[in-house]
């Protein structure tokens, strides 16, 4: 018992609104990092909140933030993996991508290309590792990471080291000429 007299049958509207306002900006920012597309990120954030809305029992759980970050990044990484597969098919079929970006200045183009590579690597490592990396680089604290991944706080250090090592290895393996690494 949490001692709070709240129904697990349905969300209290005001409470749900509070949760939404508290977490929405950050969730969207994380998903923009993952997907590189604001409107897709917003759609997916809405999807995550809709899932939350349909699980009113979480109201009494006390770890709504953690649940949201976990769910949103799971959705984002799933989409990333799916689009990675799609891109492979397109490239194999000789299709080009992002034709609309051709007119961007060179710097933007290079940055865009690097983002594609980072995302490709993120989608190739274990989802939970990708989740940890994206959440950490979005500025979540150890406590928040522990809540989102359902692990103890003092294991985060080891997990981060391993996830980063895995990420670096893959990144270097696919892009051996990268100067920054």
């Amino acid at each position, binding site marked *: 018992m949490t001692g709070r007299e709240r129904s697990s049958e349905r969300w209290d509207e005001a409470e749900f609104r509070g949760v939404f306002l508290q977490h*929405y900006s950050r969730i969207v*920012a994380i998903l923009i990092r993952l997907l590189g597309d604001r409107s897709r990120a*917003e759609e997916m954030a*809405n999807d995550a909140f809709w899932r939350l809305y349909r699980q009113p029992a979480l109201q009494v759980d006390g770890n709504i933030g953690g649940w949201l970050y976990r769910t949103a990044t799971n959705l984002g990484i799933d989409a990333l993996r799916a689009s990675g597969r799609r891109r492979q098919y397109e490239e194999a079929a000789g299709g080009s991508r992002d034709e609309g970006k051709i007119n961007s200045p060179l710097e933007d183009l290079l940055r865009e290309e690097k983002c594609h590579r980072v995302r490709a690597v993120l989608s190739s490592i274990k989802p939970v590792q990708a989740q940890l990396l*994206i959440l950490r680089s979005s500025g979540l604290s150890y406590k928040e990471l522990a809540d989102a991944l359902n692990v103890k706080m003092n294991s985060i250090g*080891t997990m*981060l080291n391993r996830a980063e090592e895995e990420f670096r290895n893959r990144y270097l393996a696919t892009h051996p000429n990268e100067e920054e690494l």
Partner: protein
Amino acid sequence: MTCIHDGNLRLYLDGGLAGAELAEVTEHLASCADCLARLEKVRAARAQTEAVLATLAPAADDVAINPTMAYAQFTSQFAADREPKTWINRLLPPRWRPVWGLAAVALIVAVLVSVNPVGVWAQRVLAMLRVQKIRVVTIDPTTLMSSSEPNSRPYRLFNQFVADNVVVTMDPGKPEVVSSLTTAAQLAGYPVRMIGSLGAPHSIDVNGETAFQMTINRDRATTLLDEIGRSDIHIPESADGALIAVHIPKTVISMYGDCPIRQRHVSHNSQSQAEVLAERKMERMANIKDTNCTYLIQAPSPTVSVPPDLNMSDIAEAALELAGMTPAEARSLCQTVDWSSTLVVPIPRNSSSSETVTVDGVEGTLITETLSQGNRYSLLWIKNGVIHSLAGHGNSSDALNLAASLR
């Protein structure tokens, strides 16, 4: 002590250690070259990965995320099957909409109900607005706001904006449905009239007294205008923070003939989506077929209180542009309308026309709307401080004949 494993070195670097643990690690690092070297390796590895991942950070010039606006979109997108709880839905039942013009501009219209200082205290504190005149303006129905379906995004954003900013200080509750004019008059507190040539009304709704207030938040209003693609509309800076209070006395709606059954506000928990949709479809069909239905609405003028220094004309200009007037039209109209006493009713330009008529011994406005299933009229006039509206299907002579039999 034994050497520190990389995980704890990482915790140490990220500030994840405290108290005795932190002291222990700090002490050990001071004396262990091996751990210090590994600490530097962990630090370097962290920096490298962080730098690469930082590529994904959104560009600084990205538009800020607005969670309040996002929540409005969320509720409209995902909660479409729930009854919208905005005051506007309660205030303006569907049948009112043809009378008041666009429900979306209804609030602003209410605000525009001009300033007529009543009494000394009012002049000192607030300006009071009362409707004494009605003026019809034609608007371009193809603009965003006015062509909006009630379920469209701009419309919902607008409704949500209103819902977020409006505080209902007097809840009208559910309308009371009565069958006799006497009972209606007792409830309303003023005489209820009837259309003599149609006999007794089929049903009478008495809507409770309503009061609400809103504080103009210029930033949020501007954001809303951006969101619906009308960033060209300018909200005067002087309006920011102005408190506008609206009081609407009891209104009486008498229905004659086969009028659509009023939408019951039942709990949607007990209804399936299909049932709700079926019900809505029925309602829509009823609205198309209700050519035999006539409404007589009596509404004592709402009172609108605004700060005395609020420039109504500037806000009116913005509202009229939102409703679909060109900036030039809005400006010229605002220069000729006395905002202290005029209710402005916007009507769509291409399908509606209006004329000035004599009705009930006073000057009235007859709006005719051409629809595929025949004409519809709304006859508006103000008598003894009560706004009257007679609405039904037919042409202007039908309206005037019915009005002539009023008693």
